[in-house]
């Protein structure tokens, strides 16, 4: 029973991280109908920036975090304006190739600046050591609590932005029907840039959170690529179009992986995610939480 509790807490923590990556993917999917394969590369790069500040220049943890998020927002906005905008009206495959190209570019650039071979450790925000219940130690530390709470705060903030503000309404209108939104005076181009910027900023936060876990480290290729697979799976569980679904999908995936890891085998974690992905696509391709049926033309 204690083991089950630990696995659940651990799954929840990881699940919140997958949820945040999924949410970033969903935001970009909704804004521009593109699966952003560069998401992992973008958050890897911003995490390196934060690592450089925190470990090389001994900056404060929070300063490094804020700089990473701001850098993410800038990279996201620029990527949309400069790289995605020109291919947006072309075939969807063009945009996919562009995001893959950006991923490879960022990985190469990070390798040139910070080196490819070494795995850099990243400081945590709070203690790694789990909370104590009686004489037993939970697999849930203050740092894990920080991860869960910060993702939760961001999710709530995004919910308020999308559902309660005029800006969020404009972003949703642009996502659903850009031409009509433009006719109503919505400045569509700006909102697409903003969507990418927000998603990349959220990604940057996730990168720093993940790097700061007990198993986390920073390299140009590796842990952040797996994160993209988990995030994408979580987004697909939620239907790719639904922010709420992405969050639930992330938590569900986190729990599944945590249980499978311990009760089955821990050698093949990425494979469990792919099994879930394939199962969802076969059984409910529109996701568990999609409400709307086929899009009417």
């Amino acid at each position, binding site marked *: 029973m204690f083991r089950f509790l630990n696995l659940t807490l651990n799954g929840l923590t990881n699940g919140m991280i997958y949820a945040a990556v999924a949410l970033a993917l969903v935001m970009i999917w909704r804004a521009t109908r593109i699966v952003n394969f560069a998401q992992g590369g973008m958050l890897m790069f911003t995490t390196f920036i934060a690592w450089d500040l925190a470990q090389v220049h001994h900056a404060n943890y929070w300063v490094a975090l804020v700089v990473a998020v701001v850098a993410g927002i800038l990279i996201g906005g620029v990527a949309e304006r400069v790289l995605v905008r020109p291919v947006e009206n072309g075939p969807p495959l063009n945009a996919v190739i562009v995001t893959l190209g950006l991923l490879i570019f960022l990985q190469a650039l990070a390798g040139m600046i910070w080196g490819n071979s070494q795995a850099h450790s990243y400081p945590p925000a709070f203690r790694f050591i789990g909370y104590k219940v009686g004489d037993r130690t939970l697999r849930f530390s203050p740092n894990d609590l920080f991860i869960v709470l910060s993702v939760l705060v961001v999710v709530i903030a995004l919910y308020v932005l999308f559902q309660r503000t*005029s800006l969020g*309404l*404009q972003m*949703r*209108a642009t996502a*659903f*029907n850009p*031409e*009509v*939104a*433009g*006719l*109503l*005076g*919505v*400045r569509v181009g700006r909102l697409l840039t903003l969507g990418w910027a927000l998603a990349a900023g959220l990604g940057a936060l996730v990168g720093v959170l993940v790097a700061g876990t007990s198993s986390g480290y920073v390299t140009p290729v590796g842990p952040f690529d797996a994160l993209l697979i988990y995030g994408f799976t979580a987004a697909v569980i939620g239907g790719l179009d639904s922010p709420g679904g992405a969050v639930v999908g992330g938590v569900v995936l986190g729990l599944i992986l945590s249980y499978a890891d311990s009760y089955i085998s821990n050698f093949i974690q990425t494979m469990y995610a792919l099994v879930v992905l394939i199962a969802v696509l076969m059984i409910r391709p529109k996701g568990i939480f999609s409400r*709307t049926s086929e899009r*009417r033309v």
Partner: protein
Amino acid sequence: MLTVEDVVTTYGAVRALDGVSMTVEPSTITAVLGANGAGKTTLLRTVNGLVRPRAGRISYEGRDLLRTHVDEVVRMGIAHVPEGRGVITELTVDENLRLGALWRRNRTELQQSLAEMYELFPPLAERRNKPADTLSGGERQMLAIARALMSRPRLLLLDEPSLGLAPRITAQIMGTLRRLRDEQSLTVVLVEQNARSALSVSDQAIVLNLGRVVVSGPAVELAADEKLRHAYLGF
């Protein structure tokens, strides 16, 4: 209020508008009639800047519309209800309406406009928090018109509001347009294939054929001219 002079709009080699001129007086309803492909929709899209003409001039209250960006046109008081309604079906009725008044910052004014629209179109009030894809065709048309009115336009461009609607609903919508003209001095340009119902509310009308104006004049005269009705209007 709106002046269109010798406008030529082309799609590749096709001249969709071939020297069209028209004048719209304030607080009147002008019907733009004609068969499929006559250039009616292109005329509206050219007026609000979605399509740029090859030649000609368009001015609105003395300002050159051809130098104005689409989202700026809305801010000048011209609202456009596109063909096929253009309601955003994933959003609720209320959200669709709010989108119509985006750039108005004043909260109380916004609430007031919302209340007015729900009074003008009672079926919308009953479904204000439902997604727009639960609405019937007629209700969607009402929503599209109401959303356009939310921006408090002085000029309303309507593209085929009767498309696919039952005659009774069409009559209701035409009645609403007449009321808006009389009570709020709204100016309307009404593109229609359904000439009979459009002429019944219009003050003046033009008939387009293959991108040219073939007839223009007071709506009453057009409706009375039997030859013309047979030749171009099909009733």
